[in-house]
Structure formats: C-alpha cells, structure tokens
C-alpha cells in the first residue's frame, strides 16, 4: 500500500464537468407538476407506479379468489379471469417494477449519488414521466372499453392475442395494450438516455466509475440493457398493431376462425416469441440488477461493513447484463427448436448462475462478522437474499430443457418467477423505501408498522409461493380458470389453493398498512436528522435533507469509494465519500 495525503483544496485539479445549475421553476405548477427536478420526477414516477401496482394487487386477489374458491364468485367469469391474469402480469413487470426501479430510484438516486445537480437533460426527463403517465392512463382506459382489457396473457402471443376468441382480442383491449406499451417504451427511452448520459458524463470531481455505489452500477447497467432490449418489444408491438389494425400478417399464419378463413397468411407467430423474449429475458435482469445494486448498499450500510469483493460485484453486474441477451430462447423450449439450440440456451442460462452466485456469496460475506443492525431495510435485504436464492434455484431446474418441458406451463413456473422477479425485487423496493424515505422527507417511517409489514410480507410470500411449487409439480397447469379434479393430478390441491389464496389476501392487505405508513409518517414520523443511517455515499452528504433544487451549494469532491465502514483509526465508524481523511500508513493518495 502506498501512503498518500489528501490534496489541499487550493490545489485541486480542474473539474472535468462544468457546474451548471439546472432550470429552476418557481411557480407551484412548474415545481410540483411539470417539474424538471429529477427528485420530483422520481416521486411522480414512484407514486404512479405504486398506484397502478395497487390495481395489479387487487387483480391478483381476484385471481386467487377464483383459484382458491372456484365457483363462489359469479362476477369472475373465465374471460374476466384471463383479463385479471394478463393485466396483473403486465402491470407488475413493466409498469411497476421497471418504472419504479429506473424511473423512481434511478431519478432520485443517480444525480445525488454521482454528485450531479440534476439529470443532464431535465426537460426530456420531465417528458419521460408524462409519457409514462399517458401510457398508464391508456392501459387503465382498456378496462373501460367494450370487451374490456386484453386477456391474452402477459406474453401477448399471437395469433390468439388478436383473435375474437381471446378477451379484448377483437375489440379495443389489445389495441390499447399495444399502444400503451409503445408509449411506455418511448417514455422510458427518454428517461433511459438521461440516466445513462448522466452516469457517463455528469459525475463530480473524483467520482470514477470504480467509486460509484453499486446502486448506480445496477441502475446504469439495467438502463443500458433496457435501451437495447425495449426496441424488441417496440418492434413486436408495432408489428402486432399493424396486424390487428391494418390487416398485415407479420405474425399471422393462415387461419380459420369459427369456420371462416381469415384474410391473414404467411406470417410467423414464432417470430413474435423471439422478439418478445429477446426483450422479456433481459427484462428479468432490468429489474434484478438495480435490486442487486440497492441490496448491496443496504447490507453494507446496515451491517457497517465494507462490501465484500466490490470489483467482483461490478464485473458480475456487467457480465450478467451481457449474458442476459443470449438466453432468451429458454422461454421457448416447448415452441420447438433444434436440439443444439436447446443445448446452447440451456448452457448460457446456467452460466449466468456463476456471476449471480458470486453476488450472493459476496452479500453473505459482507454480512459475515458485520455489525448487523436488524433495521427494517436490513430485514428486507435479508429477505431478498433468501428469496432470490430460492427463486434462482428453481431457475436452474427450468433452465434445463429436459426438466423444463414437463414443468412448462405449470404453476411451478408461476411460483419460480414470482419468487425470483416478483417477491425478491419487491423486497428490495420496500427495503429501499424504508432506507431512503428519510432522505426524501426528513422523517423515518414508523418502525412498528414496518416490522409488521416485513414479517407478514416475508412469511406470507413463502406461504403463497412455496406450496405453489408443489401445486405445479403435481401437474396443475397455469392460466386455467378452473381445474376441477382431473385424473392427471397426482394429489388433490383444493385445500392448498384455498390456503394460498388466504395468504395472498393477507399479504395484500398488509401492503395497505405500508401505504398508510408512508402517508402517516410524512407528518408523524420521527425526525431523521441529516444522515440517520450514518452512510458514506453522496446522497446523504447534501447540505439539506431533503436535498433542495440543485442538490449542493458547491458540487462535492469525492475522495474515496462508497464503502468505508468501520475503518480502523477513523473518528466514526464510517468515512463519507467527501471526507479527505487518510488512514495513517495506509491508503494510496491519487
């Protein structure tokens, strides 16, 4: 190790990035409605995502009521059930998870964590939110058109998605869904360009890429992935919209419907599957990578410990991002493919387990001998690790062709992806909200409500999805309105289904308590002070909490990485990134 001393301030090198104060609106509408401040845009994104997420939650309740207590609720028709399934899936994956991780946490944290005053293109950033809101409104409008929303399943596979036998297929439902997705992608692209360019070009003096908190690495890599993956969905949606509205046959083979030959012909439904999953699989990691990054930071802060293997964590994020583009066809094993392709995609899928496992080991090793504070964010972070490992292990089952084929389209698959990309990332979202709520409001969320929220959510999620694996293993197919008691089931599942549904209702209900906590704590939460978690990263070093417009009086200088916790010889158990302190006889001054 080489001993270096901090530069005296008068001798600092010139800034690589000009310090420009972003436009500041003074009117109420300019500040809170058409805001160009990334922090307000983040709250707008998150609020909208949570609101539409609550709709998806209610839809999941309705689904579970039907599955748990079939025949009890007359208003849940087979058509309505398919619509609930479709809208629940699409809202959760795209309009909640993607939007809140990138639009919500990305907007709030990127400028603060890299030491910028705002995103580099604030006006485009504002447009991004309003187009996202429009996309959500178009999606919601589909509930009110004749025929209702589409019931094609969240994968929207043609040809059934645009045929009259599918709810919303021959009416407006599928059109609005496709339009909404196109709008979402346009809005996201505007935001995504901002997130990527801000990380690339607006980092403050001293903030090298290898000093970025892993949260920023996760969001940045996920953004780049989304910018490359969403065009696939965009193209698929535009082509299907043409098929539905203009009579083209991109995805439509020659078809007979109700005894009548349709005008379609020559198209390939499999091409849609390729396009969809070329987006769909990276989408899993678009959600997971920000979660990986955030959870790394939560663990380091709340275990007062340096992240174990920071470099490996960065490399793993980048490698996972790259690999996720060459695994898409593992979602299509049963669509028919050359065995060599199956072998190739099974191999690439299993290879992703290596960098992912590195991350899991590093989280555990970060916790090892740490000063673990079982705060609510830490509880959710621990919940995430356990859940992600569980969901990841069943992913290894499904990544193998020979195991996937019999399990395909069973409830086992539903249980797997809910664990790995439903429950696990949502745990991180909750943990992150408990962690950064004081930064946004200056108050802590109520701890008692937080404890109830965590334990009911954690235990409840397992009560739902552990038995669901078993339900799938005994042969219950997914997407069935009512299964009855067919002979191919190796065990009865009625009791389990009722149990799962009851647990789902309870877990859903406790989310209402969480929302109440958010609003209640705005006024009644304990004042947090400036840096309640004693964190090192830049977002907690702003002169005011919550940070004001422009974030800092003068842009900060970064002297170190973001994980100096429990450093021997330091005055406190953390050294902020803005602190020029150098340990005696250690460290390398640059």
């Amino acid at each position, binding site marked *: 190790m080489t001993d270096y001393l901090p530069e005296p301030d008068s001798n600092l090198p010139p800034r690589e990035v000009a310090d420009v104060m972003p436009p500041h609106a003074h009117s109420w509408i300019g500040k809170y409605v058409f805001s160009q401040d990334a922090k307000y845009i983040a709250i707008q994104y998150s609020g909208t995502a949570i609101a539409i997420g609550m709709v998806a939650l209610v839809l999941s309740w309705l689904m579970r009521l039907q599955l748990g207590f079939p025949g009890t609720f007359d208003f849940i028709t087979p058509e309505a059930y398919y619509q609930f399934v479709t809208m629940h899936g699409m809202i959760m994956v795209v309009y909640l998870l993607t939007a809140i991780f990138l639009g919500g946490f990305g907007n709030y944290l990127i400028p603060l964590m890299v030491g910028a005053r705002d995103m580099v293109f604030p006006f485009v950033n504002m447009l991004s939110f309003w187009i996202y809101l429009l996309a959500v409104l178009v999606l919601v409008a589909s509930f009110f058109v004749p025929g209702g929303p589409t019931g094609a399943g969240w994968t929207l596979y043609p040809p059934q998605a645009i045929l009259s036998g599918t709810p919303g297929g021959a009416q407006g439902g599928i059109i609005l869904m496709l339009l909404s997705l196109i709008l979402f992608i346009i809005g996201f692209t505007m935001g995504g360009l901002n997130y990527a360019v801000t990380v690339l070009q607006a980092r403050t003096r*001293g903030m090298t890429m290898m000093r970025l908190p892993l949260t920023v690495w996760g969001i940045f890599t996920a953004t780049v992935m989304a910018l490359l993956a969403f065009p696939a969905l965009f193209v698929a949606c535009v082509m299907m919209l043409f098929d539905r509205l203009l009579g083209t*046959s991109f995805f439509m083979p020659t078809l007979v419907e109700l005894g009548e030959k349709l005008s379609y012909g020559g198209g390939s439904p499999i091409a849609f599957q*390729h396009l969809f999953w070329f987006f769909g699989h990276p989408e899993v990691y678009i959600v997971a990578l920000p979660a990986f990054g955030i959870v790394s930071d939560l663990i380091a802060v709340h275990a007062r410990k340096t992240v174990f293997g920071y470099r490996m964590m960065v490399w793993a994020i980048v490698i996972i991002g790259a690999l996720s583009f060459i695994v898409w066809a593992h979602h299509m094993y049963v669509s028919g493919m050359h065995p060599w392709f199956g072998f190739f995609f099974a191999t690439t899928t299993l290879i992703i387990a290596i960098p992912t496992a590195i991350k899991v080991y590093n989280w555990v090793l970060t916790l090892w001998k740490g000063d673990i504070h079982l705060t609510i964010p830490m509880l959710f972070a621990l919940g995430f690790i356990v859940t992600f490992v569980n969901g990841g292990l069943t992913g290894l089952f499904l990544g193998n062709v020979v195991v996937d084929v019999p399990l395909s389209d069973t409830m086992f698959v539903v249980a797997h992806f809910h664990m790995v990309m439903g429950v696990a990332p949502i745990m991180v979202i909750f943990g992150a909200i408990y962690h950064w709520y004081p930064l946004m409001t200056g108050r802590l969320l109520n701890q008692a409500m937080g404890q109830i929220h965590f334990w009911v959510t954690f235990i409840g999620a397992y009560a739902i999805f552990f038995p669901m694996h078993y339900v799938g293993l005994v042969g219950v197919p997914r997407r069935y309105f009512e299964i009855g008691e067919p002979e191919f089931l190796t065990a009865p599942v009625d009791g389990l289904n009722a149990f799962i549904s009851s647990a789902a209702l309870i877990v859903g209900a406790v989310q209402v308590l969480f929302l109440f906590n958010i609003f209640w704590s705005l006024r009644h939460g304990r004042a947090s002070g400036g840096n309640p978690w004693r964190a090192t990263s830049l977002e907690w070093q702003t002169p005011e909490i919550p940070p004001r417009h422009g974030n800092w009086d003068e842009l900060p200088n970064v002297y170190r990485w973001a994980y100096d916790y429990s450093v021997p010889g330091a005055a406190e158990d953390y050294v902020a990134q803005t602190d020029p302190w150098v340990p005696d006889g250690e460290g390398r001054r640059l």
Partner: protein
Amino acid sequence: MTVILAFLALVALAAGLWLSQQHLASKPWLETGIAPLAGHGPGRAPGIIFIAVFVTVIGGLFAMLGSAFVMQIEETPWELVPLPGRVWMNTALLLLASFFLQFVVISARAGTTRWLRASLIAASIATLAFLAGQVQVWIALTGDGYQLDGTPAASFFYLITGLHGLHVLGGIIALAVICVRHTGTGERAGDVKALLPGVRLCALYWHALLAFWLMLFALLQGWGNAFLALCRAAVS
C-alpha cells in the same frame, strides 16, 4: 436473430473498449484523493454522448426489424418486393444530405460562412427530396399491387421504410429548430461557432441514419439473406 446479435456484438465491443478505460481492475478500497475521470474531455460533451447512445438505441430498433425480416423470410419464403430504381436515387440523396451536413460542420468549425448557408440548404433539400422520393416509391409499389396488407414482404417494406422515414423527419425538424434559433434575434444569433454543437449532433445523426438505411436497403434487396446463407455454408 442473427442481425440483432451481430449489432449487439458491435455494441459489446464499444462497451468493452469504454470499460477498459475505466480501471475496472483498480482497488478503490485502497485509494483516497481526487482521481481523474476517464473518458472526459472537450470532445465528450453530454450532447455527443447523448446522440451516440440515442443512435445505438435506434440501431437496435432497426436491427430488430432486420432480424424479424430475415427470420420470417427464412421460415416462409416470400417473393421479395422488387424495388424500383428510384430507391437507388433516394439512397444517393441521403448520402448527399449527409455529405453536405458534414461540410456545414467543417465550415462552422472553421468559422467560415462562405459555403455554410448553401450547404445547410442543400442538406435540407436533399433530405426532403429523400423523404419525397420514398413516398413516391410507396405510391409506385402500391400502384403495382404491392399493398401494405399483401404479402409480409410488402408489409415489411412499408414498415421499415416508414419507420426510417419518421426518424429522418424527426432529424429535419431538429435541424430546423437549430437553424431558427441561430437566425433568431438572440444574443448568439449569427454566430457561426454557436451553430456548431447543434449541427454536429445533426450530422452524426444523419450519418447514422444513412448507415442504417444502407443496411436496411441491402436486406430489402435480399442481399442480407444471401450473405447469411454464404456465412452458413462457410461455417458448415
């Protein structure tokens, strides 16, 4: 999906080169002090990075369309749409537009106004002529019985050229906004150097759209499939 994978390989190469400059093997836990940021400099203004990322996204979009086209044509062999000779002329017009816009950049950088205005007008006219030419091709093909809802080959032709045309149209609107601002009454009006950042971004965008068009043109002519067949034959 060969086209998109080839495109992503190029993106991965660029990303790899960039990452190689970011000291990924450094040990940040051992370092304190102000470290210089890699990859920053006068040529790396946020606008340039923005356009580079944006063009990559658009490239992904067209590569996806190309992939879908190649995939479908392999699965269900169609008769390709016979492209009229006018498409060649349109290609030349886009090439000219790109050339003139680059000349505007060179003039603005040198601070000379001699050919700047003429080049700017020539670039705009060539671009508009390209768009008008594409519409003319549409009309001609429709008249020959190649309807949008005819064969998937015809549908692809209209979709690909339409989306490309929309991006060109967006570019020309951006260029018009930049020029109007420049010729306005603001304090920087008439300052040639002030024009530079904007037209530089436009020129990069034009070059990219030209490159994408050349690729798409080759695919629509069926050369892409012939090339892929050749590659497969070589591999097997």
